């Protein structure tokens, strides 16, 4: 098994693709934490902990859920809103959950407004600007999510979670696979379950803004 671990950065200007370092994707019913295959239950717990520890826990919904292509997308969007509302209820004073969309993948020139959106071509701008230290991508096409996750790992210290509808992401620090409405709701339940049991990193020097 690979000794490489997918950890919060900043790793390099150009971090290696985790897959090239021997990290493999989880099988159905599994997840990975830092590149180590684990059970889904354990991943739910760890993701909920990371959210509750973070100063600015953030959800990044992508085009696959922001746009109501079909009924399933609309239902996932509702579940994401529920997860966000749960987060807001469960954090302590000083923590600031955010919900920032990635409406599409256009490079957004001449400028992107990091207050209101994130873009896969320069996600670090949104991370730095909002001092995000833990985020979850959901509803983002795989190749764009990989691009974002690598840039974030390369230039920020943000903890990344991927709620992937396909086979998961090696480049995230924690990745689920086969995302569904039920899985998003389960994660929300875990957040609620762990409310008050996790000490937030409010005084830590560690933040998303590492440059």
């Amino acid at each position, binding site marked *: 098994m690979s000794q490489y671990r997918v950890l919060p950065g900043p790793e390099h200007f150009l971090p290696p693709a985790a897959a090239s370092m021997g990290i493999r994707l989880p099988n159905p019913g599994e997840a990975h934490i830092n590149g180590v295959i684990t059970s889904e239950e354990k991943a739910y717990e760890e993701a909920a902990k990371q959210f509750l520890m973070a100063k600015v826990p953030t959800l990044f*919904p992508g085009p696959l*859920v*922001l*746009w*109501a*292509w079909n009924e399933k*997308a*609309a239902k*996932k*969007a*509702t579940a*994401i*809103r529920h997860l966000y509302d749960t987060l807001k209820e469960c954090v302590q004073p000083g923590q600031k959950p955010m*919900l*920032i*969309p990635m*409406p599409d993948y*256009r*490079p*957004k*020139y*001449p400028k992107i*407004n990091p207050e*209101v*959106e994130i873009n896969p071509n320069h996600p670090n701008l949104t991370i730095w600007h909002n001092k995000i230290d833990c985020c979850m991508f959901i509803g983002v096409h795989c190749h764009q999510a990989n691009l974002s996750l690598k840039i974030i790992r390369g230039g920020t210290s943000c903890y990344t979670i991927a709620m992937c509808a396909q086979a998961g992401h090696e480049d995230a620090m924690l990745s689920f696979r086969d995302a569904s409405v039920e899985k998003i709701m389960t994660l929300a339940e875990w957040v609620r379950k762990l409310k008050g049991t996790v000490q937030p990193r409010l005084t830590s020097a560690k933040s998303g803004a590492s440059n």
Partner: protein
Amino acid sequence: MSKEKIKISEALYDIMPSDYQDLVKSATYGKEDRGWKDIGNNKELIEQHSLCAGCPESMAFRYILASLPNPEDTVMVGSTGCTSLVFPMVAVHNIHSLFGNQNAIASGLKRALSVRFPDRTKDVVVLAGDGATVDIGLDMTLQAWFRQEKFTTICFDNELYANTGGQESGLMQKGFVAKMAPVGKLFDKVRLPEIARESGCHYVVNCTVSKPSLVEKVIRNAVHIAREIGPTYLQLYTPCILEIGKNSMEGLQEMRDSEKPTERFAYKEYVSEPAKQLLAELAAKDKERKAAAKQLAGKA
């Protein structure tokens, strides 16, 4: 209609940037009478573009996008050049092809769409600069016309490679000295409109984009003819004000000067016989539709 697909999830509507909310609310999708007069009230670009101030190409883009008869079911194919800086901001499906490949991509795309959506009208529109259309992609451009592929080719002719600092292109005028072509062009401007006509295009227009209503007319004609009959070609003069040493506000005058009757962009139009017939039928239908609408309004 694909228009139904352009819907924001209700649960996340409030977090969408206003640009996208505006797009869904006021893009001119599904509107038969859309045109350049909708600019300002409706969205034809998602975001601000990154072309130079006063760039005639940006005007052309706006007029074209506002005039497409069926934007929600249109796919545009672009290529390398200044146009590719705008395509990311365009609120219409688009593909960026390899430099010069745009007509080959569009050929396959149009055929695939016909197979995939046999009961729906899907338009394909190629929009590329003169370098992509006439120099690097001439083979693909001509072969698509020979094969009678049913899509529109639009060439934004700025008579040089502007995006890379002013190299000589086939559409540059004879004798023109550019920043990176200091010797001056040694041969005549390639006469692509004539070549297009001889290669089987059913509708060919050579003009500037100084008159929005004219641009609207030729775009609609070109798309409708391509949809029903065969290839169409528009060569639109969109001068690069930087490369010809003009100021931001002088682009429009440059186009007006270049479209005088004796100049190289004097309005020229070729319409094949079957295309003439189709345009006459469309005009008659349009007249009927408007008369019916008028009658309906009178009754109300």
